[in-house]
């Protein structure tokens, strides 16, 4: 265990833990757009930047992203110093210039008193903030169907050659975790379309509801050893079956028969 001071309060933390986790555990609200428990910290949005110092640093301060900075004994952290707030405000202002159409960014900006960007709106800007959550989650799942393309200001998230990605299984992990909901998909008539690729959705043999894509089921079956038959039913029907089984065990089934 190490002990450190955050906003004047002394707290204990596990060795190797990142600052952001400790800060959030204390109930302090600091924004972070590129952070997700499921993937390695990335440090791209910089919103979780905090001010750190130590008694022994003789007044020297540093600004670090709390998602990536491991806790240290005797560290003194300020999550809302004037400079940190100024930085966060600038970052949000810059993001707003890039994606003025994003309600999520607008809301966050409003919290920091920014209603309109003070910069020139980016030409052809979309709502993607390039946090990289989609690509990192895709890679974490082992599919690597999408990645960032290019660099600098024209960087974008795209499948290889910007064509329908051969490795995509239509699991929607990218779209559902996108903080600004930029990644579009449709589920229509038993078909799912995402990244320009169309998938067949499996249907539950009990109730007829659509479940996941065949490709995703096959991938799970192959990698996790789940039998394909499992995917013949939807989650709700699996639960129903489970409850029936449980009922049978405690003897309710007999009553039902009689």
């Amino acid at each position, binding site marked *: 265990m190490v002990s450190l001071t955050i906003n004047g309060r002394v707290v204990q933390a596990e060795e190797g833990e990142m600052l952001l986790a400790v800060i959030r555990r204390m109930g302090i609200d600091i924004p972070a757009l590129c952070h997700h428990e499921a993937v390695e910290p990335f440090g791209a949005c910089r919103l979780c930047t905090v001010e750190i110092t130590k008694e022994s640093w003789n007044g020297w301060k540093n600004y670090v992203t709390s998602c990536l900075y491991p806790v240290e004994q005797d560290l003194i952290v300020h999550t809302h110093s004037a400079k940190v707030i100024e*930085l966060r405000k600038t970052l949000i202002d810059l993001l707003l210039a890039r994606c003025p159409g994003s309600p999520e960014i607008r809301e966050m900006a409003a919290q920091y008193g920014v209603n309109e960007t003070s910069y020139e709106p980016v030409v052809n800007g979309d709502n993607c903030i390039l946090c990289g959550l989609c690509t990192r989650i895709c890679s974490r799942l082992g599919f690597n169907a999408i990645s960032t393309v290019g*660099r600098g200001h024209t960087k974008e998230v795209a499948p290889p050659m910007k064509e329908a990605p051969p490795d995509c299984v239509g699991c929607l992990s990218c779209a559902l975790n996108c903080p600004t909901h930029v990644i579009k998909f449709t589920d229509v008539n038993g078909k799912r379309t995402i990244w320009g690729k169309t998938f067949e959705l499996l249907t539950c043999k009990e109730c007829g509801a659509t479940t996941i894509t065949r490709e995703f089921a096959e991938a799970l079956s192959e990698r996790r050893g789940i039998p394909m038959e499992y995917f013949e039913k939807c989650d709700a029907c699996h639960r129903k079956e489970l409850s029936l089984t449980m009922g049978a065990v405690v003897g309710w089934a007999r009553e039902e028969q009689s």
Partner: protein
Amino acid sequence: MRIETISQLKDLRKTNLERMNKHPRTVLICCGPGCLANGAKKISDEFHKVIKDKKIKGFSVEALKETGCHGFCEQGPLVIIEPDGVFYTKVKVRDVEEIIETSIKKKEIVERLLYTNAADGKTYTDYKEIPFYKLQNRIALRNIGKIRQCDIDEYIAIGGYEAMAKALSKMKPQEVIDEVIASGLRGRGGGGFPTGRKWATCAKIDDEPRYVICNGDEGDPGAFMDRAIMEGDPHSVIEGMIIAAWAVGSHNGYIYVREEYPLAVVNLQKAIEQAQALGLLGENILGTGFDFDIHVSRGGGAFVCGESSALMLSVAGEVGEPRAKYIRSVQKGLFDKPTVLNNVESYANVPVIIAKGGKWFSSIGTAKSTGTKAFSLVGKVRNTGLIEVPMGTTLKQIIYDIGGGVIKDRPFKAVQTGGPSGGCLPEEKLDLSVDFDTLTQAGSMMGSGGMIVMDDRTCVVDVAKYFLQFLIDESCGKCVPCREGLYQLHALAVAVSEGRATEEDLDKMEKLSENIVIGSLCGLGKSGPNPFLSTIRYFRDEYLAHIRDKRCPAGVCRALITYKIDPEICNGCMACISACAHEAITGKKKEPHFINQDKCDKCGACYAVCQHNAIEVV
């Protein structure tokens, strides 16, 4: 043949030296990038052809040497006749015959090809006497331009790989580290971190395997020091890396070199194969039981891959994006293993430090920046080229004594050091000593060693705009302050250059810069606003002229300037009319011409061709 022992290396040196000294005279043909672009290869071919045909007694094609960059690029292609150092400049294919007849068959000199110093009109025969060379002290560049490029036999002949032999046989790893610490060598890639301390930290970490990497991703516009070393003297880098590997206990090394340096890639590869064939790389080097091998890793041309963490990811085959370095790469670097990464020039210094001792090295330069530093001197300076000077040399000495001053003796305005992330220093800073700490204090930085001289016809706003554009293109795009912040900073600089900005915009730019500096993830972003910050620091008046008076004092920013013809001076030669691509200039022969401002694109072509100074920029 494999060299098994150190005495065999000594024997080989003797044989090679005898072979090298067999010819009483040798001809060195500079085949550095500058000379090659001016036709050095054709000159070399012509020399080979003529020498073969002529059959001169005591001279054969073996005495012709294609060398790496000799340094004085402005005067290239260069041909040097040794041992007298007769220095022929701007040689053409048609001069080859005459050089052979005069300087090889006889011992005479082709006067018209000698170098004349523009400053004092003096003509020099021996290059060592020319001010450009005389004031230099070459350590990292010691062999370049003197031996055949990428030739292990010549490298060994002049004492190459002896420092390695000394380290491997007579010194413990800790002794090597101590020697490098004593030398005071600091990272030549620009960061200036003490090399010895880096090695010591890595050696202490209890994890295996360890890696040694050489950073040859030189991406600063106008910089070519590392290129010259990798092309001209790759063995000095390899030797430096082997010594580093011995010091930190590594068995695998990588040289990361950008694909845009095709000759460097080829020469490094060739040099590694030569060293492997002799057993200087591979298993059981010189019978000492030490194993080390080097692989060449080619970069795809991203500037940001020169940043250490991005470089290591790129070597590992991943997207070259920097990561936060709260855990240092000496601890978790390539493949998450302890890694020592140094610049090409740092490694090139190492063999000399081991051979002559750290104390000797630290006696050169200043107390905190020891040794020498290579610079590529470019821009509006008379003697462009590759130089190496002791640390502590002043900017004035470099630009005026070595560089020969500003072209056409125009007023000096600024010198840009440290590449895109560096800064511009004005005339009053010319007496500053060139070392890591002084330059950083003045708001610029050492960087990898690019030095761009600017005259009064350079607009600082335009310069800031140029470098910011470069950084926008080269930012990896991972973190917001760098990707979006530099983009907006550039947009504001454009507004200044077009006269659209207000004084509040300047404050906004300074505020934004400050936040980019504290908020960015890697060094590229953290130093990204420097082109703006250093120019506003020293040239605020020029920014204000753009804003308040809607005027570009240097006459560069197109939106704010007008080209005018002075009818009193114009003699109607029509040169500007034919130069204008927009048909904006009218007038008859021998009558004053006139520029139609509606059609004028402000490209400046007319200004450039007018021999009578009749065109002015207002």
